[in-house]
C-alpha cells in the first residue's frame, strides 16, 4: 500500500467522501460539493463556449474572411434581440430570434422525425414471420409487442373488449421492458460505485489490485 501524495487526488477523494456523506443525511459537506460542481461546470462551459463558439465560429470567420461571412451579422442581430428578454419593455423583440430558431428547427425535424422515429421503427418491426426460431422467437414477438404497446397508448378508444385485451398484452410488454431497463440501470449505477471504490483503493490508498 502506497498512499498518494498527489494533492489533486486528495481533492477528488475529499469531494467523493463529501458526496457519500449524503447517505447519512443532507449536510453542508454535500452542499459544498454540490455547489462546487455547479460552479466548476459553469466555468468550464463558459470558457469552452468563449473559445470554441464565440472565437472559433463567429469572431475568426468574420475577422479572416469578412466578404464570405458578413451574413453572420444577421443572426448576431437576431441573437442580440434574444437578449432583450431581460428588459421587459423590449422582450417582444426576442420573438424574432425564437421564431427563426423554432421554425427552422421544426422544419428540419419534420422529415427527420418521419424517417427516424416512424418509418425506420416500422421497417424494423415488420420483419418476415416464418416458422423458424428467429421468425417466431424474435420477429413475431416484436411485432405483437409493438402493436399491443401502441394500442395501449391509443386513448381515443376505450380499453374494452378486444382493444382492452390487446392493450393488456401491451402492458405486459411494457412491464417487462421497464423491468429490463430498471435492471440495466441498477447494474450501471453499481458499476459507477465500483469505479469510485476502485478510485479510493487504487488511486488514493495505492493498493495493487489485480
Amino acid at each position: 500500500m502506497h498512499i498518494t501524495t498527489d494533492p489533486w487526488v486528495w481533492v477528488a477523494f475529499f469531494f467523493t467522501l463529501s458526496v457519500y456523506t449524503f447517505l447519512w443525511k443532507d449536510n453542508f459537506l454535500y452542499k459544498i460539493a454540490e455547489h462546487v460542481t455547479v460552479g466548476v461546470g459553469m466555468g468550464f462551459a463558459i470558457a469552452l463556449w468563449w473559445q470554441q463558439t464565440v472565437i472559433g465560429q463567429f469572431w475568426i470567420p468574420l475577422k479572416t474572411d469578412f466578404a464570405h461571412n458578413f451574413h453572420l451579422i444577421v443572426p448576431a442581430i437576431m441573437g442580440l434581440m434574444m437578449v432583450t428578454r431581460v428588459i421587459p419593455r423590449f422582450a417582444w423583440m426576442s420573438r424574432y430570434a425564437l421564431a427563426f430558431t423554432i421554425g427552422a428547427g421544426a422544419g428540419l425535424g419534420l422529415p427527420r422525425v418521419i424517417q427516424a422515429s416512424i418509418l425506420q421503427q416500422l421497417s424494423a418491426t415488420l420483419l418476415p414471420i416464418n416458422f423458424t426460431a428467429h421468425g417466431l422467437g424474435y420477429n413475431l414477438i416484436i411485432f405483437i409487442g409493438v402493436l399491443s404497446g401502441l394500442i395501449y397508448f391509443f386513448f381515443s378508444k376505450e380499453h374494452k373488449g378486444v382493444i382492452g385485451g390487446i392493450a393488456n398484452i401491451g402492458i405486459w410488454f411494457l412491464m417487462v421492458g421497464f423491468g429490463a431497463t430498471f435492471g440495466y440501470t441498477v447494474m450501471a449505477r453499481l458499476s459507477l460505485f465500483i469505479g469510485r471504490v476502485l478510485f479510493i483503493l487504487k488511486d488514493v490508498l495505492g493498493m495493487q489490485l489485480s
Partner: protein
Amino acid sequence: MFWKKQLPLIIVFVMGVVMAVQYFVPHQASEWVYNTYLKWGITIGIFGAVLGYFSFFRVHVVKIVKKAPGWGYSVITIVCTIIMLLAAALDGMGTGSYYMKIYLYTSAAINATVFSLLAFYISSAAYRAFRARSTQAVALLLAAIIVMLGRVPIGNYVSFWTAFHLPSINAISQWILNVPNMAAKRAIALGVGLGSLLMTLKLILGIERTYLGSE
C-alpha cells in the same frame, strides 16, 4: 400587433416550410440553405447562452446581496466559476492545464460519485417497485432480476439447467433486452415520434404559440 404577433408566426411558417422542403431537394442551393442555417443557428445560440449565463449570475448574486438562506453556497459557486475562468485565461484549456485538472478532480469526480450514490437509493426504490403485488409486477420483477444476473459472471454459474440444453441466464437476459424490451421501447418511440410530428406541424401552422410568451 403585426410586429409583435403575426410577424413571428410568419417567420416560423416560412422557415418551417423552407427547411422541410430543403430536405427533399438534392441541389447545391438546398445544401447552402442548410449549411447557412447551421452557422446562423450557432451564432444565435451564442447570444442565447449569454442569456443563460446572465440568469445564472443574477440568481446567485441576488441571493448573496439579500443574504438569503444558503447564500454562502452561492459564494462558493461564483468563486468556483471565476477560478475556472481565470484558469482558462491564464493557463489555457489543453490537457494537463489547471482548467482541465480542476474540472477532472472536482466536477467529474463529484458527478461520478453522485451517480454512484444512486446505487444505494435505487435499492430502496427496487424494494418498493419489486413487491410483487400483481402478476404484471411479477413480470417486472423477473425481467429486472434476470437482466441483473445476466450482466454479471454469476449468471452463468447459476445456470445449472444448461446441462439440459436450455438457455443460460445470460442468453435469457439478452433475449429479454432484444425482444420484449425492444418491442416496448419501439412502441414508446413510435408514440413519441407521432407526438413530435404533430407538435412540429402545430408549430409550423401557428397552432402552438406558447413560445411567444404571455403578452
